């Protein structure tokens, strides 16, 4: 529903993502806000923001795969690992520029995604979940054992990754945040836009009923594989950012828990919505961050109990909040946000 007094008079207006001058203004202000955020944020919050940006990119990929196309994946962290190790191996062992490995990381992760996405033509639902869990373990195992087959990934010890440089200077936190922000903006635009293309509509058709979609002429094999490729491409890009930010990567960094978190983020944010995926990532990461000062405050107040009680309490608060959202708003935060907007626009009328 459009705000009161806003009417679309041309097809381009109807198709536009940003429709009104107010929305444009808010978008520009928002971008300016996030751009300058790095300049005055405390260091730990800036690092948190950078890692959040990487998570958002990975979750957007999962949103396309799972939220739009209905192909449940619990191996997103593994595809992120593929992107991270691609850039690590190419930069460290072959001396390629990190800028050159950006698209290569995404494409290679996408290709690996195709391999594990192929069973999606035959299986779905629970069985597909099991297949992607297998991807998680197989990919991490391959990376870990790869020195045995002559590929130097450092195995369980890990591998160093060079810093991204501009004019010979390594990026500092603020500059890295700008890079992450740029990647997030581009990926969000892509994710948002793909929903409005014929490809995006085929994704949704396959998600809603793949048999009906096939009857309507949607090529199931192509559509499902494309969803896997795009979703894993996003994960590969997130992995590229991760590798160059951390500077040292090990297979343990891309464990199954991370894949679970990604899935949890799109569930909490709301399946099938780009904004929801971002909301989910921000909410979970924010909760994770917010409980730290709380734990610290409790530690200061009760020093003798600090180690036992404070972290446990922080976990309890975190778990309670997650359970609360799942119970009260199973359709996700985005659904609640839409209802709030609707309420505001219709006020004082109920409908």
């Amino acid at each position: 529903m459009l705000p009161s007094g806003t009417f679309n008079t041309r097809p381009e207006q109807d198709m536009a993502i940003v429709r009104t001058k107010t929305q444009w203004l808010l978008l520009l202000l928002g971008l300016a806000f996030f751009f300058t955020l790095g300049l005055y944020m405390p260091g730990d919050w800036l690092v948190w923001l950078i890692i959040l940006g990487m998570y958002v990119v990975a979750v957007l990929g999962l949103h396309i795969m799972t939220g739009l196309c209905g192909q449940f994946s619990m191996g997103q962290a593994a595809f992120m690992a593929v992107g991270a190790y691609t850039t690590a191996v190419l930069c460290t062992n072959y001396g390629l520029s990190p800028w050159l490995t950006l698209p290569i990381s995404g494409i290679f992760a996408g290709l690996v995604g195709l391999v594990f996405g192929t069973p999606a033509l035959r299986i779905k639902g629970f069985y597909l979940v099991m297949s992607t869990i297998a991807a998680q373990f197989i990919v991490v195992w391959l990376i870990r054992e790869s020195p045995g087959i002559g590929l130097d990934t450092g195995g369980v010890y890990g591998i160093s990754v060079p810093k991204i440089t501009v004019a010979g200077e390594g990026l500092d936190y603020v500059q890295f945040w700008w890079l992450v922000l740029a990647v997030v903006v581009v990926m969000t635009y892509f994710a948002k836009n793909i929903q409005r293309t014929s490809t995006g509509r085929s994704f949704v058709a396959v998600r809603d009923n793949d048999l009906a979609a096939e009857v309507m002429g949607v090529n199931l094999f192509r559509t499902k594989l494309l969803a896997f490729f795009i979703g894993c491409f996003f994960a590969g890009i997130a992995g590229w950012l991760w590798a160059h930010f951390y500077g040292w990567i090990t297979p343990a960094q891309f464990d199954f828990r991370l894949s679970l978190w990604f899935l949890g983020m799109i569930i909490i944010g709301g399946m099938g919505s780009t904004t929801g995926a971002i909301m989910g990532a921000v909410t979970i990461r924010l909760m994770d961050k917010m409980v730290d000062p709380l734990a610290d405050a409790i530690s200061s107040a009760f020093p003798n109990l600090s180690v036992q009680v404070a972290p446990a309490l922080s976990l309890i608060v975190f778990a309670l909040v997650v359970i609360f959202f799942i119970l009260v708003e199973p359709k996700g935060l985005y659904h609640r946000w839409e209802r709030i907007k609707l309420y505001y626009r219709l006020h004082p009328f109920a409908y």
Partner: protein
Amino acid sequence: MAKGVLLRAISVILLALLVIPITGLMGCSGDDTSADRIVIGFEGDLTGPAARAVIDVYNGLSDYLKMAEDEAIFQDIEVSLVHYDTKTEYGRVPAGYEWLKTRGARVMAVVASMDREVLAGRYEDDQIPAVGTQGSEVLQGNDWNFSLFTAPEAQGEAILQWIMTNWDYEQEARKPRVGHAGMTGILTSVAYQRGIDRFLDTNGDKFEWKGHKLAPVSSATWVTEINSLRDCDYIVCSMVGPGTALFTKEVREREYAGNLVSGMEAFPGYWELVKGAVPPSSLYGCFYAHYQPWWNDDNSFIADAREAVTRYRSQEDAEAQMRGTGYLAGWAWGVWLSNAITRAVENVGADQVDAIAIRDALASTDIDVEGWGNTWKITETNSICARTQRVYEWNVDDEDWVACSDWILPPSAVVV
């Protein structure tokens, strides 16, 4: 109606709990930096999968600092400890480091060597020193990283060196049959494998080597590995967590009567689990190699730790701490850090002690700690304090560990 009210009440409480810490974001919480206050930043897994071992280390360090305050060891300065829980989640590691920096930490105490590897570049850029318990071969030569113990590879070497020294080649008229059981994909097992292979490269003729048998981490049975290693006189164990108990139980149930030898990661860390799973009479022939003295040793290091653990902990907690090695590792950290901080104060004055002064003091560590096998001496080519290890045997009758070897210096721990 009642449900709606309840939900609203829960929402308000949860939101309040989340909003309170925003003061930290706004900068209202301030930081703990002042000229004569030195903050040690402790980063480790306090609630995640590795918490069981890490909390003991934290307790040891924290009790040492309490004792130092009570006995006025630090002159003109106050030393405090701030911790950050990484939950063994890598997304939290750099953020935790930055958070500890904002709390004014001038030296970082980081338990997991992998966390220090991730942060090594940042320590160097920010010129903040970091100390760890277990060393890492990757970090050797890094000017801002110091370790209490050598890398785990040296444990594999020390165990074989001990077997070689202990074995009576003349009387037995054969070489000892030795194999390694561990887990795939965990650093400890891979590092032991590397250390053992390195030792075998130069001493392979002294052993009848039966191979490395690594099971998946989630493995519920060790039948394949045990069958492969059944003939061994010694099985080197490098599994961690409940796997240690499962392996020990199964290996004895399958009538293996030989010896089981581990490093600091397996038996000492999970011995309570092992004791809970295996009948006491089957716990014969269990050994572990470690860098530090044990609780029943008679020396000032242990005496001080014993006094502190009974002074600052409840009886039940103190007994629990004295069944493991983590508290002693934390206590050793305390001894080391307090020595470095005291020297830094002497060198530059209480109001001038910064991270660089502490780093310089750590880099010139030269302490004789009673009960340890070597002088803790950091040099340009050595960033590790304790390089020697000793083997302990579980005494089934007394239900306690007993030292059964001299101090061993494995080849990779020799400082040139």
